[in-house]
């Protein structure tokens, strides 16, 4: 039972939540409302005339193959980022769970990428894979692979996926390791007595028991790939070559601030907003249900 605390004065609680409310209104509600409003407008590139067009911007998006392609691309991108980074994180966490000596160092090292800003992460990978100077490019060359993500769209896509996934490994790792730690040690011991080796134990005991965390991370990672990878893509490929790495959030920026189609761009961002709302609701529903065995 939660205990209710009663304040005698009625304004104190409002005062306490005011900063949070103001920030939310200023940086979330207000821009979101603006975007929603913008999405119904058609404006010429110089901002001289504005016309209220109802759902025209949305209908146009629906008919635009470029946009639909970007949609599919984003789906592929986020699934690839989520599975790659979660896969690695799970692997590292499973190993870290068994490490006894130096586990502290090992964990610290794994958590560092989380502190790197997205643009820096992008730049870092850009250096490694620079077509002329990059060290990894050099090694790939010795294996006969010609790396140039500025020309090759498949390579460009792989690179942004790699960079985006790399940055998210730390976050996933933390959650996985916490989930593994919360499994009672006696369960692992019981399975050892029952004769399960480490792999079998992982597959039949550990993995099923951390599945709530896995689901949570899946949603978080998809949201991450949808929205927070802007900086990485901007630094590495800027959406190119062609439109091959232009995911939805990047297209919002491109169409709005480069192409100056503010109405269309706003419509896109409204759709993105809708997607994130749905994902969040799904997640909350699930978290609320609290998987209990």
């Amino acid at each position, binding site marked *: 039972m939660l205990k209710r605390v009663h304040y005698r004065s009625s304004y104190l609680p409002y005062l306490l939540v005011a900063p949070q409310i103001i920030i939310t209104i200023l940086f979330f509600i207000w821009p979101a409302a603006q975007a929603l409003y913008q999405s119904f407008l058609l404006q010429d590139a110089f901002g001289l005339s504005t016309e209220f067009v109802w759902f025209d911007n949305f209908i146009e998006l629906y008919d635009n193959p470029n946009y639909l392609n970007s949609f599919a691309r984003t789906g592929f991108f986020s699934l690839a980022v989520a599975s790659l980074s979660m896969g690695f994180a799970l692997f590292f966490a499973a190993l870290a769970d068994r490490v006894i000596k130096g586990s502290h160092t090992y964990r610290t090292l794994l958590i560092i990428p989380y502190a790197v800003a997205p643009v820096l992460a992008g730049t870092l990978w850009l250096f490694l894979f620079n077509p002329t100077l990059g060290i990894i490019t050099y090694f790939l060359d010795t294996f006969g692979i010609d790396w140039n993500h500025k020309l090759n769209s498949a390579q460009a896509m792989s690179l942004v996926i790699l960079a985006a996934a790399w940055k998210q490994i730390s976050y996933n790792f933390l959650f996985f390791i916490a989930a593994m730690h919360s499994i*009672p040690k*006696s*369960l692992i*011991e*019981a*399975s*050892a*007595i*029952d*004769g*399960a080796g480490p792999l*079998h134990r992982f597959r*039949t*005991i550990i993995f*099923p*028991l951390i599945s709530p965390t896995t689901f949570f991370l899946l949603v978080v990672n998809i949201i991450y790939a949808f929205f927070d990878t802007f900086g990485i893509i901007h630094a590495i490929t800027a959406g190119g070559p062609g439109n091959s790495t232009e995911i939805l959030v990047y297209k919002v920026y491109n169409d709005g601030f480069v192409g100056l189609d503010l109405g269309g761009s706003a419509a896109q961002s409204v759709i993105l907003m809708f997607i994130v709302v749905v994902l969040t609701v799904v997640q909350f529903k699930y978290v609320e249900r609290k998987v*209990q*065995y």
Partner: protein
Amino acid sequence: MSDIKIEQLKKSYQSTQVIHGIDIDIRDGEFIVLVGPSGCGKSTLLRMVAGLETISEGTVQIDGAVVNDLEPKDRGIAMVFQNYALYPHMSVYDNMAYGLKLMKLPKAEIEQRVQQVAQLLQIEDFLDRRPSNLSGGQRQRVAMGRAIVRKPKVFLFDEPLSNLDAALRVQMRMQIKTLQRNLGVTTLYVTHDQVEAMTMADRLVVLKDGIAAQIGTPMEIYDDPHNQFVAGFIGSPAMNFIDCEVTEDHIVIGEQRISRPPHVNMRGKLVLGIRPEHFIEENTSALEGEIEMIEKLGASILLYVSCKNVSQAIVIQCEGHLNVNIGDTKNISFDSHKLYFFDPSTQQRVY
């Protein structure tokens, strides 16, 4: 079926030693209870036998073979944990079948074994349920079932009843004991509850700070404790310890004296031990004290009697309908053949 031989077993964590060389010989089919206060090393000892904890020094033999370096699964043991350690995401059936599947037994045999054990433990109605949908007692039985289906050579129990309420604990204690006798499997059972220890054990190992203070049958340990710790730990309510001085003619307790029974042939400052149930209603060679507190247990009644210049109240167990009040003066008489004497410096029993 098999015997266990534990020789000079030691365990250290980094620099701290927690088990200081323990020897136990366990015969085939015996029910051995490791009992001692919390933190004395019971679980550690058990887990070394299970193979869940490495052995620092000494050997554990099961069936004549040293198992020090064997994996838990290769030792032929099954263990019941205090929190039961049931796999929460599996049905009761799958919990019990988990180890059997890993033994690569044919499906029909797994089915048959699980059904048989489920019947034995009266859990056949819950086989499809998840552990979270069972009561504490049912979970306890499932944990037992998971141990039994493996047909182990040795059962290991680590405080399996301490999460149950008192009534269920008494009931399960009998069931486990009966089951063990019927199956005839050698058993090591850890508990901190001396009543559980007394009622279940064929033989007890009383542990204190990583040392086996005494090993013997419950009655041997009750009648003949080797030191003050064992005397105080085994028996309920606990034995009274009273500082005294034995002189040529008397035993001096506080400011009073009683005549020395002729067979008490020690002299000097000693600790007198007497169990609450060994006082008698008689006025010969009596001490006098004032009743400080009364605990009515129904069948019996416990009197806490304070004597002048004796630091602790003396606990006396009397017949349940005794009519006494707080503040009454009480005559205390001993059965002089049931007195124990301990050396106050070594705590060893001297008489």
